[in-house]
């Protein structure tokens, strides 16, 4: 795929194709072209640099959205379990994930954790690893443990790919992902500065493309998009500016994302596809790359519900985001039965109340088809802020 000098329309069409392709044609083509392997991972974050350095393609999987009818997946989960594991299982048992040679299940919640065990039982021929992340952030305690975890992951990835991974290869991968994180920051900065130039629908699809595309290709795509969109003339809108919070795992359907924007909200900050933005600063490229990745994880990351907040200042990170992006309110959107997002929400709401920041909340599922009520709710939220500055 060559994005050079593409128009916004062409770039977004490419992203739409990637988003809609549950057969992962890009992954299959990449494997064929590179004679390589692919490793899928669940939300939120895995150190993709290690998979990449082993010559494999890391691919973020975020369920099937509303693109796939769940026929067999429901038989694996009770009605009170969220949707993402169902559609992931559905994709797997309908052979759509056959192109993945391994799967990583990062620690985010008990459902994804248990899914890792299900994977081991259901697909014993495939590599599957549950990845624990430190909740202790002292370098000599949690850092040391995480460093050990990364050594194991590197060893496993080298075995899976059949290639020896050198320190230089790791450093090179870190550099490429640093570039990608930098260009994504630029994209978010532009969206925050001129939200009418970067509609959420487009930004979202570009972020979803980061799950699939080889990192350099994605970096080039974002650069192309930034170049193209800056020269576009797009109408300004009388929308309010909001931060969207709680969408870090199971994703809202694309139509819901559009509906939010059409209801009068510029989303100027969000937490979807958060893994691509998890590390806030460039990872050091001198010295031991695994130690550098471990150090980056301990500090200078986003704050999100699956990560313990040591300082106890729950909500302060969200409030900082509101201030940084000059948002006028927060929309809490959480998948039904999502423990991390829903347990986090009352604490965040309490902090917003104290800071006098308006918010509204709703739940969704990736397969929802009806958004009228949500659209009316967020539309009313937008109107009340426009009219009275609060709700």
């Amino acid at each position: 795929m060559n994005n050079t000098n593409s128009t916004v329309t062409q770039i977004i069409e490419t992203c739409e194709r990637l988003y809609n392709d549950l057969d992962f044609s890009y992954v299959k083509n990449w494997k064929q072209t590179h004679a390589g392997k692919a490793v899928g991972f669940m939300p939120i974050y895995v150190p993709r640099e290690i998979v990449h350095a082993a010559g494999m393609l890391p691919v973020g999987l975020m369920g099937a959205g509303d693109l796939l009818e769940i026929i067999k997946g429901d038989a694996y989960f009770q009605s009170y379990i969220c949707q993402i594991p169902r559609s992931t299982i559905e994709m797997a048992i309908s052979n759509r994930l056959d192109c993945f040679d391994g799967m990583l299940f990062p620690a985010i919640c008990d459902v994804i954790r248990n899914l890792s065990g299900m994977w081991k039982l259901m697909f014993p021929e495939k590599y599957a690893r549950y990845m624990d992340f430190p909740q202790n952030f002292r370098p000599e305690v949690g850092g040391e443990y995480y460093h050990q975890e990364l050594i194991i992951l590197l060893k496993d990835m080298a075995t899976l790919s059949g290639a020896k991974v050198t320190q230089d290869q790791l450093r090179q991968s870190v550099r490429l992902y640093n570039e990608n994180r930098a260009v994504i920051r630029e994209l978010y900065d532009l969206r925050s500065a001129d939200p009418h130039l970067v509609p959420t629908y487009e930004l979202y699809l570009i972020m979803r493309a980061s799950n699939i595309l080889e990192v350099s290709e994605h970096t080039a795509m974002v650069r192309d998009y930034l170049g193209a969109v800056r020269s576009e003339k797009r109408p300004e809108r009388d929308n309010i500016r909001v931060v969207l919070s709680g969408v870090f795992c199971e994703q809202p359907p694309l139509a819901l994302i559009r509906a939010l924007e059409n209801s009068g909200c510029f989303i100027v900050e969000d937490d979807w596809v958060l893994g691509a933005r998890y590390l806030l600063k460039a990872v050091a490229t001198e010295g031991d790359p695994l130690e550098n990745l471990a150090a980056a994880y301990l500090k200078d990351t986003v704050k999100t519900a699956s990560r313990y907040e040591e300082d106890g200042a729950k909500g302060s990170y969200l409030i900082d985001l509101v201030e940084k992006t000059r948002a006028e309110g927060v929309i809490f959107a959480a998948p039904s039965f999502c423990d991390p997002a829903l347990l986090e929400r009352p604490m965040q709401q309490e902090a917003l109340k104290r800071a006098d920041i308006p918010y509204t909340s709703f739940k969704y599922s990736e397969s929802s088809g009806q958004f009228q009520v949500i659209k009316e709710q967020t539309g009313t939220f937008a109107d009340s802020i426009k009219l009275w500055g609060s709700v």
Partner: protein
Amino acid sequence: MGNSSSGKVQKERSMLLQKVMIANHFKKLSTAHADNKKVVYTFVPGNLNELIRAFDMLPVHPEINALQSAMRKKSAGYIREAEKYGHSEDVCTYVKCDVGMLKSGNIGPTGEKLPEPDLLLLSYTGCFTFLKWFEILRQEYDCPVVVLQVPYQGDGEITPEMTAYVAKQLREEVVPVMEKISGNKLDEEKLRRLLDSSARAESDLVEILESARHKPSPIDAYFGGVYYIGPIFTAFRGLETCEEYYRVLRSEVEDRLKKGQGPITPEGPLNEEKYRLVVEGPPNWTSFREFWKMFHEESAVVVASSYTKVGGIYDTGFRHNSAEPFESLAKYCLGCYTNLNLPSRIDLLEKYIRDYSADGFLINSIKSCNSFSAGQLLILRELEDRTGKPGGFIESDLVDPRYFSAANIKNRLESYFQMLDSRIQEASVN
């Protein structure tokens, strides 16, 4: 000989002893601060009772408060109270019950107010919700929090690195905070004595649980089991009273074993053992007696359960070990049932079905406990495939009475027992 139902709850000496232990503990808690005792809130799985007691501090377990509230029919109100504060109907009802109780004055099961914590000891073992729970409680209390992260057995084993990580946190994070809170240096000799005591009680508990291998089983390892694990899973492990409780209980069980008697239930002794079951998942607490009665009426005895392993698995050989106090505490935390990966859970349940000669197994799937529930339908299939024993599946909740539908559960159980009956008859003909 049929099973009698007197209406009056029959109690053995061990039950009365446990009642006194609990009453004394809550009495001590109610005057803890006046008595200059420090109070540690912590969770049951991966609890560090020996360490807490080595510092002469008193533990409070929020899950125990929640289940006690449910048994006293107070949880519905507490949950409603928490939901008023924005807690979702979708999340763990233990959390909401605890938050609601706190917002309603924090009155404990004995009617006395629980003391505020001096320390929140977040033993993050086998349940993601624990992390959020103490983040929520931290908003309410002005006290330090110390986190003990216990890595999950994702690959079905405890590696030396995992043990080292937990032990290091104990030495470098937990103990220094406890020393600061309590004002005392850790007395390692005292800790070792407590660990030795734990090991003795654990051995007695294993004998009690394994008595269910006999036919008829002298115990019910699920409904009765929750009483049997009470002291060792909560505030008493490591204490002489705990050892005494298990000595008394063991002698009661051995006595029933000798006489060929079945378990004691609230409805009276269960003398006829028709079905032997293994149960996966926690019980429902809001209708605990009614739930148990459904089994009693069918002469069904639970011979092994996974719920009685959430606060530690002892029947596969683990004992607290005073020769390596911190490593031993680490291995204990790492080995709790909900910290096992799904394949290991299935292996353990399969072993129980075989070792305890079960006729079948039942999964009580709990709406608000994803740690247990996610993956249980696969557990059902795997166990049926591996053992050929029929599995039953019912759904309820921990402490939210809105999710305990007695009629539905009874219907399902009756159908399940009919199926078991026909399987048993088929087997006897063949």
